[in-house]
């Protein structure tokens, strides 16, 4: 992309300096050669020898957990495919930086990687932008039906498959089973029930350090997920049938007021407005809270031998606002996609399919803290022996719901984040922040269609 511009600039510079009579022809030639070398080295990849082994580059985020399962899996793949070598490169730590890295490189046209790990919310955007390969012809639909439907949905755009499900996630409620049992409570089905349980347990325990309900209220994607789950629990959603954001603004305000009420009433500490997954997981893991909204990754940490809450944590669906309306947890996770212009599409697809296969997902579940997208693995006797909560997580995931599958999701979410945060910390009223968010998104999305 840059090459032609650079060259004309170089030519211009050379011409100018020659006309000034300052530079010999030799000097100009040297300069030109140097510049064109620069241009070549900047844009061309290393030349690949024909017939030699094919090298694929896999870009993935660090897989959390006690052991990184990726190197062993890639070694297995290489052993079974003698003509293919895999170079695994780790993406930056934060999700925002990962996306920025991928967007800039893919938009540039020569990304330098063949297979990439995508947060499920990016798949439609990358498909719409024409950066990733349509996998529909290479992946039979029977292969997809083994995954959770919400994961398959997240990898589908305009009826075609763009990415293979790899890692599964779902929002759920952790509760202290020992505390609830001590006061004769069942896991709360509704918010009023949960608030009542918090009141009774905290006054009964007499521990000023014991918080009630922890959730993620910092200005980031996690806040949007928490609000989205609130919207679902209130019977509405974020993006309506007609593509409008907050199709029911009154209910959206109601949800924001409810989240504020959690803080005002003391059921949630004020610092949740700056909290993410880890800063809420730690206090709960130290036994300093009764309830926590988080993802399944935390359960393995709570059950570690040195954990203060080992054996005292239960998993439940998120509470409803009122009886009758279901409250699905938001599903999340990662997919595998293939770069549109990869030189080795067949090999790249083969690698993606291998990594999302039952064998690879079993290995990842056994050694890491990730959960598989393949439903059958949640009943795998060997895996269940290692993490007895798997069947429970399976049921909760089945009840989960994917975030709006639209190419504009990131645009919508990043626009909402400061507005939702403003409502939580009372810089704006809920009505004002909902109105501002809608106005802004209508301007940003005004002529974009699916």
């Amino acid at each position, binding site marked *: 992309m840059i090459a032609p511009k650079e060259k004309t*600039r170089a030519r*211009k*510079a050379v011409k*100018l*300096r020659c*006309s*000034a009579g300052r530079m010999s022809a030799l000097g100009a030639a040297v300069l030109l050669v140097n510049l064109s070398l620069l241009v070549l080295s900047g844009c061309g990849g290393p030349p690949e020898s024909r017939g030699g082994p094919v090298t694929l580059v896999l870009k993935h985020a660090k897989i959390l957990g006690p052991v990184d399962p990726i190197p062993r899996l890639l070694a297995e793949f290489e052993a079974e495919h003698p003509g293919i070598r895999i170079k695994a490169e780790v993406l930056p730590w934060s999700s*925002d930086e990962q996306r*920025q890295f991928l*967007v800039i490189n893919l*938009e540039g046209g020569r990304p330098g990687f063949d297979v990439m790990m995508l947060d499920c919310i990016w798949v439609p*955007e990358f498909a*719409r*932008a024409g950066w990733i390969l349509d996998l529909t012809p290479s992946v039979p639909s029977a292969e997809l039906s083994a995954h959770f439907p919400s994961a398959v949905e997240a990898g589908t755009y305009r009826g075609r498959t763009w990415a293979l499900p790899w890692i599964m996630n779902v929002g759920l409620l952790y509760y202290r089973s020992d505390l609830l049992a001590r006061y004769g409570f069942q896991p709360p089905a509704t918010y009023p029930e949960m608030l009542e349980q918090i009141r009774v347990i905290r006054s009964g325990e007499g521990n000023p350090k014991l918080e009630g309900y922890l959730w993620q209220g*910092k*200005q980031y994607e996690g806040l949007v997920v928490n609000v989205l789950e609130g919207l679902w629990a209130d019977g509405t959603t974020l993006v309506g049938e007609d593509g409008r954001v907050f199709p029911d603004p009154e209910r959206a305000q109601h949800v924001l007021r409810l989240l504020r009420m959690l803080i005002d009433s003391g059921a949630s500490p*004020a*610092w949740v*407005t*700056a909290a993410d997954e880890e800063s809420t997981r730690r206090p709960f893991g130290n036994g300093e809270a009764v309830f926590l909204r988080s993802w399944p990754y935390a359960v393995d940490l709570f059950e570690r031998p040195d954990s203060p809450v080992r054996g005292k944590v239960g998993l439940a669906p998120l509470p409803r606002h009122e009886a009758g309306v279901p409250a699905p947890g938001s599903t999340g996770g990662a997919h595998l996609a293939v770069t549109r212009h990869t030189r080795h599409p067949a090999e790249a697809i083969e690698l993606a399919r291998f990594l999302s296969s039952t064998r690879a997902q079993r290995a990842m579940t056994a050694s890491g803290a990730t959960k598989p997208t393949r439903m059958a693995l949640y009943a795998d006797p060997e895996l269940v022996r290692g993490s007895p909560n798997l069947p429970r997580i399976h049921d909760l995931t089945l009840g989960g719901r994917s975030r709006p599958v639209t*190419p504009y999701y*990131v*645009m919508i979410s*990043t*626009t909402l984040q*400061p507005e939702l*945060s*403003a409502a*939580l*910390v009372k*810089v*704006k009223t809920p009505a004002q922040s909902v109105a*501002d968010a809608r106005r*802004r998104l209508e*301007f*940003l999305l005004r*002529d*974009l269609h699916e």
Partner: protein
Amino acid sequence: MRSGRPGAGVTRRRRRARVQGLVLLAPALVTLGALTLYPTVWVVWLSLQRRIPIFGVNHFEGLGNYAFLAADPRFWKAVEVTVLFTVASVALEVVGGVAAALALRGQRWGSRVALSLLLLAWALPSVVTAKLFEWLYNPAAGLVNYALGGVALNWLGDPRLALPGLILADVWRTLPFVTVLCFARLLAIPAEIYEAAQLDGAGPVASFTRITLPLIRRILLIAVLFRTLDALRSFDLMFVLTGGGPAGTTETLTVYAYRSLFQAVQLGLGSAVGVVVFALVMAVAWAYLRALRREGLAA
């Protein structure tokens, strides 16, 4: 021959000299044009477009982006944050910088060591400074809360504390710049002036307001010019420390432009914000240059 005949030969030579001068200037002019004029014009042009490359949207829109910004609360909040940050941090830096310079002058020994230590803060990359302050401000383990007697202030998470926290970090980082400039000027003031003033009965306050301040006035103006332009464009500190949060209370215009350009990939809207920053910086620079010209400091 030199001054006598205004003949045709000399004119031609003069003309040739002028052409040669222009030719010699050309590389500089072209470089400047390519590096500053071209991007500026391009950004202004972009700001009149609706352009979202990843979705293939690209059409002319006129002033639509500006019309949206004019009614955009987030934009006006960013203007407010930028102006507040600039005024507060520059004011504190100047007052603190002069005080530190005076203290340095009064120091009998160790002023060189103190100066080098001060410069250390100035020499640190601002991302490093930001990371440093992230730890200092940590609500649970931070030194700031510990030094304040173990309070539990949530510096970067509280919408009322985040901006003051950022300003403090910026002052810590750039105060040495003002100090060094002032200190250099202070050393050049002859001691006799103060002695004479003392004989005339001037106290420390009078000799500061009547002698020191007027003499460092010009260098202060220059320091303020640099610092103001820097502060108006500041990005790294807030980007690393707060990312513009909580609730947009530390989002400056440059962070807003970045978020529009790189997160929402709205090249038109982001460029419009960039043009506003550019206009703001130019207006301030122009006002300062006028003031400096009155002082006889700039051509």
